[in-house]
């Protein structure tokens, strides 16, 4: 059901540009106004979310530990999975951000021998799927820079050459297009086929996947099947970059659909779970060293409590205490 809601939403997002740019011909709206708007919302929303996180105090020291913490000198510490130094923490963050180390440690519980024995096994599929998706996405993003730069820096050419190194067909097939489709399919099927995951999956979980699917499929269609005029599209995109928008006539509805879906992603991004792009850097469970026993973590939230010490109290009531014969500490 949740998947169905998400599917309907994404289909609606596909239909809007087909009607608006395709049937009604509002090319300037879909080609210029909406992209600028979406980019602005993305940037401001992203800043807003990160600053808001930055302003939230971290009351406790809560690094997740994945190994032996620093202890007696003869006990070997796991310096990366339970780092107690800054360097260790930085290495841990780098591994987390670039290689998704915490997903690599996923385990899976299984009952076997007629459900009488329990076993924990390693489960690397989510890690593999996630890494495949993110790397492909990043490469695809980098390849798209050819539309936004002139002359195109060599770095992007190399990425493109590397991606198409198999030289299958003309225009050459990019490996990342296949990989991203497989990865998205896996990430989706995982949610649908595993009962526990299906139970906790919300429409937003599916929405992001479907939206990405739609973007990838529209892009692939445009490259291999309903070919778009790349040269005219570059005129449009460079116009956007140089703030002199120009809308060539020949660009078709498929391109505007692709662009509108990307705009939707940009607008949706800051308000959704996709913000883990910024959030991963601000995760207290990852970016704090595990030095709980060496350094005191003061809760920045602590309210400056107004103290009224016993001494002050006694000063206040000394006369009355003496009258009543209660012993006082100071005469």
């Amino acid at each position, binding site marked *: 059901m949740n998947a169905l809601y998400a599917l309907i939403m994404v289909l609606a997002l596909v239909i809007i540009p087909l009607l608006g740019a395709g049937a009604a011909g509002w090319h300037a709206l879909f080609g210029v106004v909406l992209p600028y708007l979406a980019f602005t919302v993305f940037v401001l929303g992203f800043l807003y979310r990160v600053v808001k996180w930055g302003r939230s105090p971290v009351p406790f020291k809560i690094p997740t530990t994945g190994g032996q913490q620093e202890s007696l000198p003869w006990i070997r510490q796991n310096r990366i999975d339970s780092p107690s130094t800054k360097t260790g923490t930085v290495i841990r963050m780098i591994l987390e951000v670039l290689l998704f180390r915490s997903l690599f440690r996923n385990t899976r519980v299984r009952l076997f021998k007629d459900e009488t024995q329990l076993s924990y096994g390693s489960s690397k599929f989510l890690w593999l799927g996630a890494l495949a998706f993110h790397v492909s996405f990043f490469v695809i993003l980098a390849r798209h820079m050819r539309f936004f730069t002139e002359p195109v820096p060599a770095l992007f050419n190399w990425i493109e050459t590397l991606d198409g190194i198999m030289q299958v067909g003309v225009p050459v097939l990019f490996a990342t297009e296949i990989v991203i489709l497989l990865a998205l399919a896996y990430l989706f099927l995982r949610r649908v086929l595993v009962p526990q995951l299906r139970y906790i999956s919300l429409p937003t979980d599916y929405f992001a996947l479907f939206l990405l699917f739609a973007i990838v499929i529209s892009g692939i269609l445009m490259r291999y099947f309903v070919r778009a005029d790349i*040269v005219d599209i570059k005129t449009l995109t460079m116009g956007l970059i140089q703030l002199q928008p120009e809308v060539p006539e020949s660009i078709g509805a498929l391109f505007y659909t692709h662009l509108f879906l990307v705009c939707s992603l940009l607008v949706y991004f800051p308000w959704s779970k996709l913000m883990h792009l910024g959030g991963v850097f601000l995760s207290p469970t990852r970016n704090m060293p595990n030095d709980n026993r060496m350094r005191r973590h003061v809760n920045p939230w602590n309210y400056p409590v107004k103290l009224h010490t016993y001494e002050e109290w006694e000063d206040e009531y000394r006369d009355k205490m003496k009258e009543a014969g209660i012993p006082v500490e100071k005469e």
Partner: protein
Amino acid sequence: MYDAGKILIGLVIFLLLLTFPFWYSLGQASYESPELQLPEDSQECIRDTEWMRKNHMQLLDDWRDTVVREGKSVYTGSEGKQYDMSLQKTCMDCHTSKKKFCDRCHNSASVEPYCWDCHVAPEEVANGQQ
């Protein structure tokens, strides 16, 4: 903000990366779509220009497969005109310069067809440029 220094540095890096195309194009002349040297002694391409712009690579791919795999080599254009299916002998007969035609677009679109690893572009060869 807690850890303001680190967070701000992170955000500045993020913004610089995000706006890379904007500051990369600063101070550059405004973008013009590539200027092509069109053939002088003919008026039209094998199919209409619009179609050629979008689909010439697929046409070439079809030609290659037809010639190399099926051994046929005559292509009938949309107006009934017949062409020899050849990259060097047909396309490059009219579009005599690879540098001033094919490459202009391809540089701008950042594609480097690997065809020229084996095939030769006529004019450049004649002029000893290659």
